[in-house]
């Protein structure tokens, strides 16, 4: 066997592949079944959202933000609204702040449920996909009751939220929270101790802590690598400093920990929603001084950031005193994670790469914009 000739070859994991993470192309240099080098090629979904926003008024930019990160579009709306409100020093009413927190946390749970379903589907298990999307439908019903849309909500606007909740919202929300708490036991029972799941996820895709900080990785991926950093607690925005919840952190840095951490985060989000529903005050939902078509924040620049379900989402906004922004630069959590992938995803087989890519929970429009 010593005379056998070996060579490396390049395999293209092309823009269309059967997991629904979007259009990402990975050029893999392989030796046999082992992956030696990964080179991500992106840009297949570059829609020039930043150029479009330069020619729209501030309120017209909000639907564009929806399409930037559509799985958690409440967060995308929020980061832009925060930036514009900081520039103009607008006061947001109390009721609007509470509604924002409830919607953001519901959206975080919906995003993690999609992660649960799609990750399991990538590794071959089809039942969790149906379970996860069934609970997500309950949350999407709540959103549809409030703002009429199932996916791109356009709800959190500059100065508050667009409309108030109907009176059926609060009892239905409490029932949804209770149902999801019970079903989480089902989800854990299905996959946590499953021998196939453990073999495919434990000790796979280890992302060391210092590599994570060097590449700017944030969110659940960073917390599963031992970095104890959550923007809701450490750099609080909106009214997150009034609620009491834990930030889960794990130290094994592998795919299994990332999966367990997201299930922990669902539980903590349910606690926050309970507290917010208990403390919901009465009042208006829009800032009274805000006029949408003639909103002109004074000249200046600001970088606002929030904790999204994929990491830190940031919006750098420059204004020159007119109704349209000069520059909108968006930053999503998936960008840094995809940049770090070639440095910790090699050494395993292609099947391991599928598990790693699914556990990072990357959404391509955040990368390409």
């Amino acid at each position, binding site marked *: 066997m010593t005379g056998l000739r070996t060579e490396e070859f390049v395999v293209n994991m*092309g*823009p*269309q*592949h*059967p997991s*629904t993470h*979007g*259009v990402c192309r990975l050029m893999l240099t392989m030796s046999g079944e082992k992956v030696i080098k990964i080179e991500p090629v992106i*840009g*297949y*979904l*570059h*829609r*020039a959202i930043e*150029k*479009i926003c*330069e*020619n729209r008024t501030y309120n017209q930019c909000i*639907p*564009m933000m929806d*399409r930037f990160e*559509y*799985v958690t579009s409440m967060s995308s709306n929020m980061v832009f609204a925060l930036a514009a409100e900081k520039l103009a020093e607008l006061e947001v009413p109390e009721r609007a702040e509470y509604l924002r927190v409830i919607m953001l946390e519901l959206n975080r749970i919906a995003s993690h449920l*999609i992660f649960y379903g*799609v990750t399991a589907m990538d590794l071959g298990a089809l039942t969790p*996909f*149906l379970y996860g*999307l*069934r609970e*997500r*439908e309950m949350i*999407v019903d709540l959103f549809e009751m409030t703002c009429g849309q*199932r*996916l*791109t909500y356009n709800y959190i606007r500059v100065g508050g939220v667009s409309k108030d909740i109907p009176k059926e919202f609060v009892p239905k929300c409490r029932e949804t929270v209770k149902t999801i708490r019970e079903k989480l036991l089902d989800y854990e029972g299905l996959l946590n101790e499953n021998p196939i799941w453990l073999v495919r996820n434990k000790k796979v895709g280890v992302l060391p802590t210092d590599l994570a900080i060097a590449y700017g990785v944030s969110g659940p991926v960073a917390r599963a690598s031992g970095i104890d950093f959550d923007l809701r607690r450490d750099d609080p925005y909106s009214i997150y400093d009034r609620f009491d919840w834990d930030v889960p952190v794990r130290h094994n840095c592998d795919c299994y920990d990332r999966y367990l951490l997201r299930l922990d985060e669902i539980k903590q989000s349910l606690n926050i929603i309970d507290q917010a529903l208990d403390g919901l005050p009465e009042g208006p939902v829009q800032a009274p001084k805000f006029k949408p078509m003639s909103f002109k924040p004074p000249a200046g620049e600001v970088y606002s950031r929030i904790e999204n379900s994929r990491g830190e989402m940031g919006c750098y906004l420059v204004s020159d005193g007119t109704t349209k922004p000069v520059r909108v630069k968006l930053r999503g959590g998936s960008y840094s994670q995809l940049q770090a992938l070639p440095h910790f995803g090699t050494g395993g087989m292609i099947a391991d790469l599928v598990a790693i890519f699914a556990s990072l929970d990357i959404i391509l*429009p955040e990368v390409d914009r």
Partner: protein
Amino acid sequence: MGIIKKLPVYAEKVPGGGIVTTSIEKVLHYGQACSVWYLLFGTACCAIELMCTGAARYDFDRLGMIFRATPRQSDLIIVAGTITKKMAPRLRRLYDQMAEPRYVIAMGGCTVSGGPFYYDSYAVEKGVDHIIPVDVYIPGCPPRPESLLEGCLNLQKKIKQQKLSDWQK
């Protein structure tokens, strides 16, 4: 007996069983329309609605539609999401790899005419019919799962209107 009344067949009982007389076109129509397998091709936001339509509440499987991972094994490509100029040649290559008869559904505003990215975007292909021929257009941003199901039923109607002589060209 109820089902037999709705199908375009002539059924007769003979000793030892029955005879059903129909045209070959009808058999082919029912065979094709009731089992269209689609390629999982989701680029952007509409892909999430496509996934939801395939999930438990709005089920695709009751129409006989299952997702396939490769274009060689599918009859239908549901283009869900924005197509950029960088992605356009790859979409054409996927379409060329499908075996005939093949159909295309353009789902969502972006594939119909560029959608919200029509103005001021330098990288979006404004309508997917510049690249591949489309059978059914579904507007919406994103369209509801019920719209997508109606689009698929319209496609089934279109398939049932095809004539055998079309395939001989």
